């Protein structure tokens, strides 16, 4: 049922593959540079600076507009030419619209009202701060040919080339090593044979010196009762040690990495995009539960992030090796849309939801009471202290053993964060005097009492 992978093994494999990766990574950089340059070369023309326009677009427009698809507002690729061709509207119309859309709607402009009603009667935010030149830049960006295919091509190249070669390289190394070992063995055999021949040539009788009087080693061992006894005891003790170790790890799911219904990557969210843990796990501040974010929290961002575009450099080698391509991630976003009942075409909720059944990673038994807010909000413990480097985890895994010994050790070693907390003022003063210390540990504060966690 549960798939428990051991972190040590993973790190070893990762270590080896890192070495290999380093060997082959030089060519990759060259590839990336090529991809990056292709982005800029497109823009001059239309009386605006498309590069500047891109920045402005991302700052001001991207929350509601995409270039190619409907979002809160209409797609903006080639918006100017589209307007002039379909509606006969010029750039002046756009200036007015962008600077004061609601004024235009009120004035009764036909197309303005049409757009207004089409997009759920949500008026576009007015941007009076944008100058006409800025708008020109944005329009230049919207009119520029899209660089998107380049990224896809890059990904394909990467998949076809480096992805495979890294696989082959492992085999090659192993093969080479095998050949080296084979050669070494052959050399040894040859050397021995040569030596024998030399000995024969010198008239030394090898067979005799080996001697039949000598007992085989195993028989000598078997006849020495003391040695046998010691070895048996040693084996038994060793066996008991390992058996105990095995028994004690039963029920401890450190390294538990279940496969989730949606491949949610903490690495992308918390690592690459540096989203604060507590943004999504908001109840961690006030509740015993960290809370799995409800899907509407996902939709705060994923209303506009409808596809995965990876890092600026494109997906890494490892990701590609695992099949974590941009398409893969985009498909996972679609799973989210399906679960939350989001109609991408019409940009609205259908109300047809399918709650996601996540597999719980950290299974604390019912007999223990653990409160997140106590640790995170009061004590200021970093999430990573217990959950490990989540921002590096592609798939969430149980980092800590979550045993009582692990809890208790931490309580013994950690000082209570009393600064600026009026609650602790009196008790800290009295207790630290009693124990003769400056800083009280959680244990000294009473954090080892059974009833603090078991009730």
């Amino acid at each position, binding site marked *: 049922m549960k798939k428990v992978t051991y972190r040590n093994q993973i790190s070893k494999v990762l270590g080896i593959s890192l070495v290999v990766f380093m060997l082959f990574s030089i060519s990759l950089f060259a590839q990336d540079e090529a991809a990056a340059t292709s982005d800029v070369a497109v823009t001059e023309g239309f009386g605006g600076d498309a590069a500047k326009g891109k920045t402005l677009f991302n700052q001001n427009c991207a929350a509601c507009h995409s270039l190619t698809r409907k979002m809160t507002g209409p797609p903006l690729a080639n918006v100017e030419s589209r307007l002039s061709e379909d509606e006969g509207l010029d750039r002046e119309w756009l200036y007015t619209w962008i600077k004061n859309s609601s004024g235009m709607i009120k004035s009764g402009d036909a197309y303005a009202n049409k757009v207004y009603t089409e997009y759920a009667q949500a008026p576009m935010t007015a941007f009076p701060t944008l100058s006409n030149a800025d708008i020109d830049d944005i329009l230049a960006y919207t009119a520029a040919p899209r660089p998107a295919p380049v990224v896809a091509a890059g990904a394909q190249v990467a998949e076809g080339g480096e992805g495979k070669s890294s696989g082959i390289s492992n085999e090659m190394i192993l093969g080479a090593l095998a050949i080296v070992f084979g050669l070494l063995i052959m050399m040894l055999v040859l050397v021995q044979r040569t030596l024998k021949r030399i000995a024969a040539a010198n008239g030394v009788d090898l067979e005799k010196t080996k001697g039949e009087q000598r007992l085989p080693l195993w028989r000598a061992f078997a006849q020495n009762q003391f040695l046998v006894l010691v070895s048996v005891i040693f084996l038994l003790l060793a066996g008991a040690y390992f058996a105990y170790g095995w028994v004690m790890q039963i029920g401890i799911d450190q390294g538990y990495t279940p496969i989730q219904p949606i491949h949610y990557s903490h690495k992308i969210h918390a690592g690459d995009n540096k989203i604060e843990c507590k943004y999504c796990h908001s*109840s961690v501040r006030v509740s015993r539960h960290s*809370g799995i974010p409800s*899907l509407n929290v996902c939709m705060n961002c994923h209303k506009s992030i409808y596809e995965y575009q990876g890092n600026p450099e494109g997906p890494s080698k490892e990701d590609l090796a695992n099949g974590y391509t941009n398409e893969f991630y985009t498909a996972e976003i679609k799973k989210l849309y399906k679960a939350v009942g989001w109609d991408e075409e019409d940009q609205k909720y259908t109300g047809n939801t399918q709650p996601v059944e996540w597999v719980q990673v950290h299974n604390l038994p019912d*007999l223990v009471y653990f409160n997140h*807010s106590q640790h995170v909000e009061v004590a200021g413990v970093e999430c990573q202290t217990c959950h490990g480097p989540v921002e590096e985890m592609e798939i969430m895994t149980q980092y800590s053993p979550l045993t009582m010994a692990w809890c208790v050790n931490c309580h013994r070693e950690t000082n209570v964060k009393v600064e*600026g907390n009026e609650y602790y003022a009196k008790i800290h003063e009295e207790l630290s005097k009693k124990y003769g210390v400056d800083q009280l540990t959680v244990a000294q504060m009473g954090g080892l*009492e059974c009833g603090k966690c078991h009730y």
Partner: protein
Amino acid sequence: MASNKKYWKNEVELNPNDSIVETLRQNEFVEEIPVDEFLGDKDNLSETNTNRRDFLKYVGFSTAAASLAACEGPVRKSIPYVVQPENIIPGVANYYATTIANGFDFTSVLVKTREGRPIKIENNTDAKVNGGANARVQASVLSLYDSTRLQGPLKDGEPVEWSAVDDEVKAKLNALKTSGKQIALLTQTYASPSTAKLIAEFKEMYGVVNHVTYDAISEEGALSAFEAKYGERALADYDFEKAEVIVSFGADFLSDWQGGGYDSGYSKGRVPKNGKMSKHVQFEANMSLTGANADKRVPLAPMFQKVALAHLYAKLNGTGVSGDLPTGVPEVLDAVVAEIKKNKNSAVVVTGLADVNAQTIVLAINEMLGSKAFDAEAPKYVRQGNIENVNALISDMRAGSVGALIMDGVNPMYTLPNAAEFAEGIEKVDLSVAFSTNWNETTEMANITAAANHNLESWGDTEIKKGHYGLIQPTIKELFDTRQLQNALLQWMGSDKSYYDYIKETWSADLLGESEWNQALHDGVYVAASGALSEEIEITDVDESETSSTVDISAAVRSLANATSGEGMELTLYSKVGMGDGQQAGNPWLQEFPDPISRVSWDNYVMVSKKDAENLGFINENVANGGLNGSYARLTVNGISIDNVPVIIQPGQASGSIGMALGYGRQVGMKSEMQTGVNAYPLYQGFNNVQSATIEKSSGMHEFASMQLHNTLMGRGDIIKETSLEIFNTKNHAEWNVVPVVSLNHQEVPATSVDLWDSFDRSIGHHFNMSIDLNACTGCGACVIACGAENNVPVVGKQEVRRSRDMHWLRIDRYYSSEDSFEEDNIKKDEFDGLSGGKGSLGGFGELEHPATNPQVAFQPIMCQHCNHAPCETVCPVAATSHGRQGQNQMAYNRCVGTRYCANNCPYKVRRFNWFLYNNNDEFDYNMNNDLGKMVINPDVTVRSRGVIEKCSMCIQKTQKSILDAKRDGRVIKDGEFQTACSMACSNGAIVFGDINDKKSEIAELRESDRMYHLLEHVGTKPNVFYHVKVRNSNEA
């Protein structure tokens, strides 16, 4: 002078030769382990095919299988909201103010919800009237999750759609408009302005509507008397806090008398302040909760109560009246009169006699005294039932002139004494619709069963007392396809409004502005500025005629004084604190709730005095396992008999009288475990709670589940310290609150100063203590249910309770003592000389007290005392129970291996052993074995498994939460923030909880009180729970 009374829990204890008492004293766990049962039968053993080797094979295999199975944990799913409601944070409780108004109980409450499901009911301290939830209200949250609830409307027993019901009812109603037949609405008391208005509109629309209000347990006498005098059908309100002298003639005002809710005011007046406390004299037949709390209780059959009341009126008035009273009673009456005359306007007289004359006289007396505690200006509306109308309706039904009958909140087929006539009538009604949450006796007869909302799923409003409004708001969406009557009426009137809109409109139009609505909803209560009462929302069928002068007091007095009883015994029907009128009979918490007086759970019974029992041959006996058995009786009233009524011999029962509780014996739609007791409603003839009955013995013995003999305190020491007000006021506390002495180095020193162990320094941090004031505690038991709800205490069932395996963490011990002979008893006891002989102690204790007459009663809530030197902690072989710095004795269930040494070593007998797995076990078919019932479980407290000891944790989950909240806000904890479930439930202020290291806190002050003592001080356990000496105002009268 300290009270040295000998307390006893059951008269059997007084018999020194009774082996059972001795057995119970010696054995903590009553039953032997039944080894002999399966090893003693040699034949059986030799016949079996399983030999020793096989057995070992099985053991080996199952061990291996179990360990293999343990290697892989189950995969647990975690499903978050798709769209999380803004106000719900998983793990954080929300509270909503609402009102429980089920026709019997009317209480403003706070409902605690977790992740959207109500899990506990708490008192609404903002409410000025009826803000204290009693045991039934506390338990009503479990009725919400009753697995036998109706899940949708039914027609002739088959599920139908609501739309079909609507069509049929609407068509019928429209047809009846012109047919001449009436449309009858038979409902509970709503005391709801909006419902009254809605029904008036419904009447207006369909014309021929006859709204009849019906209370299962009627207050007809009081309502009629009040109506005659003040012109409004309501009940006078009383504030017992303001009364110095309380005289009650059969009024059980600490439980359900006239709608209840009087106990917190009473308790406040009972705590001696500045040397004063109220004086309470009770004349009654049954030993009631109120009588148990009285300073002077006079057991008097109902007939004599009437005569006594007439005498009292005459004496206060200075006139004379005929009628004889038993010896002793006139003297008591004289003393009472003197007392009343001394206190005049701070005296109050109440009666629970259903007789309208008695009620009229009581109103007249209170009016005459100008009693401060009496309030007829702003009366209560919690009972509206009208017997005349009910009877008229039944005869109309039988005459065939009722076209449609719509019932809500009533179960007449069960509660009506003349149910047979009703059954005959309902056959002749064209269309009968019964709104009900459960399948019951009435829905069985009705054409259409409309599945109704539970109170906690409904909208509504109340006017409990004139000018005091309350709102009912749902705390959870309807669990099933149910609908409340008001919404159905709106639907049938063709309105597209919901009842919520309707209430909001009514309130906004008549009571308050838009801005105040949210505040009122938040508070749950709203008190109208005086005089702001709008006429429109007055109950419409109130007769406004001026009738106060027409009441003929002298005739009433004459009729009372000439009261006679019929043949046989006088039967007083009453309602139990735990069961009320029986509408929550399917609630396992209430079934297992022991009666405060008899300590019997899962049953009702007929109470007989010892003298009468001897004459009639009734016996109560304790069998070998400690269970109580009682004879069966056959009760006959007016030709109607009920058989096999178990008998309890009740000390204090007035001789010549018997008592029996209503509300039991429900059958239809109930789980078999819940079908307990016998139905006494057939005896409730003419809705009179006093009947003349004949009683005779029938064969067989009934097995009671009584907690009476369980967990005896082994006769050790002064458990309840008691003194009289005079001594309390005049003597030093060393005399009436005696600290036991022990011998140290051949010198007698106070036991509290001797310590076997080293004490820890507990002055740092919090140190929790609990104070229990025996004067304020009425024994009502709301705390018991609250404790169970908070701490997931399992229900174990009748058989297990009988085996003393009840799991209540908090119990209220009830002790009987003897009265009047107190001083003589003392002298006699002091004069005991040797074991046997005329003054020997061996038989002396038995002679000392006369159990059959009229004992005084004391209640003592006992939970884990959280001893600082806990005997349980030192004997646990696995250190599963240990002490925290904050004073709590902690219990780690996962560490417990179930040796039960701790339970054996506990001097207070508060530890409970899980003999079985009570959850997910169909052998215990109560609430923890089904998904619905499990919704009531508090997620912050572990559900215990089989084989571990459990006990009161002093609600450590609540104290930890308070601490965490303060830490998060970075502030110091305020006094009053620390609470336990029981201290929160106690609206009487008997239980106070807090941190004694906070020197300014209430609890620190209470600990310094002269009345403070610890239970079994001489044992040296240094408990963190302390009690306050009970003071009785009993030196005179």
